[in-house]
């Protein structure tokens, strides 16, 4: 009754209809695609839209982005292209030596393609120095942090033929910061020094940010520096004797995950500090206002930076405000900067290499305005 061809054809029909079945009866667990991409929104039907063809165009784009099992289909395609041609389907990831993956923005910065010039850097550093001195008079600590980057940490693993630019933002920022006496932490330099002695990698091969271990090392240094500058004891997690070695995970795989393939790179073993609940939250802790980029999010996730402070306000790219205890983030326009600075014992401005040209993202200008600081030409030179 049911011959092999008949059974086969029924199987093919079922296979063709899998996506439709999955829509109504989600049998398979579908792992979402990693990376950043914009998906098309749906549209509503109207006769005008139909006859102008706009409805069909929008609807087709929407269906293309939202059909069930899409991620599995795309991963299969990506895996074949990766396995056969070593081709990536991620816009901003390149492979260096020893399977190290790099974000192309960092490589552009390493080549000096985004160098903004010494006069501009001098201006930025001078403004921060002026702000730092002004806040110091008000018993506030302003710490500037240059986060590390993978290209400077592991230049030996950059793609073949990558040449460092004659001038890079980081080099000139660091030089000017030293010249002007700006109180800052230079993690680029610190990580390079630690690399020789540190038993574990501070950057993962397949991630863009520091490793969990690197984040904890940096976290300790930041807390140490803030304690020293403010003379306030800041509680933090004692993690150094509690490190396990296990496979790279989470953010440590953010670049390889962005390739959306099933497998392709050797497993990397990394050190994972175990952050345990040992901070006494009733203990007196300072409050902090931070302006920074994704390195702070990373630090918060892996070092639990927030728990070291009684009040924690983080201005992400000085655009979105995350506040300890608040359910939602807020827009920067809703921030009363004078109040935020007055309430904070400590202020930290952090940026990694690729963002140095915009460090503070407008915070320094806004803060100078709040405190009526009008820098003269001599101060800015």
């Amino acid at each position, binding site marked *: 009754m049911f011959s092999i*061809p*008949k059974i086969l*054809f029924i199987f093919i029909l079922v296979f063709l209809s899998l996506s439709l079945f999955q829509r109504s009866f989600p049998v398979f667990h579908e792992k979402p695609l990693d990376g950043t991409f914009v998906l098309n929104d749906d549209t509503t039907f109207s006769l005008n839209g139909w006859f102008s063809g706009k409805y069909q165009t929008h609807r087709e784009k929407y269906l*293309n982005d939202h*059909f069930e099992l899409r991620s599995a*289909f795309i991963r*299969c395609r990506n895996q074949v292209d990766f396995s056969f*041609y070593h081709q990536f389907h991620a816009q901003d990831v390149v492979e260096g030596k020893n399977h190290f993956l790099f974000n192309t923005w960092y490589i552009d910065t390493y080549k000096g393609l985004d160098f903004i010039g010494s006069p501009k850097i001098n201006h930025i550093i001078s403004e921060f120095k002026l702000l730092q001195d002004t806040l110091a008079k008000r018993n506030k600590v302003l710490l500037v942090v240059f986060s590390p980057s993978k290209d400077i940490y592991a230049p030996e693993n950059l793609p073949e033929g990558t040449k460092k630019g004659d001038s890079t933002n980081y080099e000139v920022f660091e030089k000017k910061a030293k010249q002007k006496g700006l109180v800052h932490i230079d993690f680029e330099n610190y990580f390079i020094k630690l690399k020789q002695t540190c038993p574990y990698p501070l950057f993962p091969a397949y991630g863009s940010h520091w490793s969990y271990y690197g984040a904890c090392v940096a976290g300790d240094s930041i807390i140490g520096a803030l304690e020293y500058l403010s003379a306030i004891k800041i509680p933090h997690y004692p993690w150094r004797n509690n490190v396990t070695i296990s496979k790279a995970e989470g953010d440590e795989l953010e670049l390889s995950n962005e390739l959306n393939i099933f497998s392709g790179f050797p497993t990397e073993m990394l050190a994972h500090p175990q952050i345990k609940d040992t901070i006494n939250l009733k203990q007196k802790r300072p409050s902090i206002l931070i302006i920074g980029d994704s390195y702070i999010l990373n630090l918060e996730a892996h070092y639990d930076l927030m728990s070291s402070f009684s009040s924690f306000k983080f201005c992400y790219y000085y655009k979105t405000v995350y506040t300890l205890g608040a359910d939602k983030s807020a827009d920067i326009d809703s921030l009363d900067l004078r109040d935020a600075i007055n309430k904070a014992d400590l202020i930290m401005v952090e940026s990694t290499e690729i963002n140095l040209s915009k460090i503070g993202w407008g915070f320094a200008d806004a803060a100078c305005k709040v405190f009526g600081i009008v820098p003269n030409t001599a101060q800015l030179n």
Partner: protein
Amino acid sequence: MIFSSILFLIYFLPVFLLVYYITPKFLKNVVVLVFSIFFYSWGAPKFIFVILGTTLVDFFLVKWMYNTQTRLYRRILLTVSVCMNLGLLFYFKYSGFFIENVDVFITHIFHVHPLGWTKLVLPLGISFYTFETITYVVDVYRGEHKPLDNFWNYQLYIILFPKLIAGPIIRYHELADQITDRSANETTENRLLGFYRFIIGLAKKVLIANQMGALADAVFKTSTADLSAYAAWMGILAYTFQIYFDFSGYSDMAIGLARMIGFKFPENFENPYTSQSITEFWRRWHMSLGRWMKNYLYIPLGGNRVDSKLRLYFNLWFVFLVSGLWHGASWNFVFWGAYHGTFLALERAFLLKIYDKIGKFFRTFITFLIVIIGWVFFRVEKFSDAIQFIKRMFISNPKEYKFIPDPAFYTLLIIAAFFAFFTFFKWTQKIQDGVFTHEYSNLRHLVTAFLALILFILSVGNIAGSGFNPFIYFRF
């Protein structure tokens, strides 16, 4: 809607097949018709009414013609129907081109204001649709087949979605009987073989043609002044394989889909790049257009049965000129048609005799070279730019354009060339015949279905993961 789209593959196709297979036999044509109307309306929501209207008029005109005994009346009705359909094609496809050229003429000669013309949106598949309506009226006029009794059956012949927008162009008498009864073709074997054919076409389009097209686009976008000879060759080779795998892939999908629902469509391609002359090339490339041109233009012009050789050469040349114009309302298509027509006439005159002496390899090589040069005229709209491109192919350029193709390009180019020339040898032709004609054992079905599903997954992944999915033949 196009076959190689998520909308078609993930939504339309499974729903259509499920509904079609569970529908009782007497309602199957209704299902196909409804889905065909939806398929076409999706891309041409206004023009669908023009199709429905003109087919209604056509249906009754042809019925009237069939029942009319007087030859003069029959001719008048034939002329009315042909003029109506060609008029529609002319209005939508050629009016802009015609007035543009008239404007150039009158403004230069008579120094008057140009007539001007609002550019019209070309309805999907109008060139295919028009040619099929003409076959209906002409086939009935010639007595090759009686007209269909039912308007909706005629509508189905015209609007049958597998072949509606990019062919093959099916002559009425080839399909007429299948519309009313195709139960003999509705077997599981045919459904499976149709599915395999559909997937082969899909893979040809998505996995080869699109990749070739991406590189061809990059090369043709570059100014010829910056092109190296190597890049120009890679660009035109990529385009040569793109157009073949794109169009033959679409035809495979159409033939496969039709077979899955019991229709048998004529073949449209037969390894054209292995041709040993341009005459043979046109017997293997877009065969359904070639057959149409022969039956509805070349033979009415007198065909081979003309008084002088000059007239024969003119007929050949004229048919190809029209064929070129059919591909697009632009001088480069006209030139491309005339270019092929010229080679056809030259082959009739003396070239074939020379070819006989140079051996199969050189014949194929020369033919392929002529075809490649022809594709330059087809691809590049401006004649002077096409000449510049051809110069660049043969004269080295000191200015180095950095030619960095996609990592997959060379592999796919080799795969494309391998399949395009696979039947060059007799023994390889036998292998191909075996694949497509020998009976399938159960094991062979299992293996082929497995491979087909892998190609389906990769094709869908490619479509979903890439915005690059153009179809060349939709312009025609």
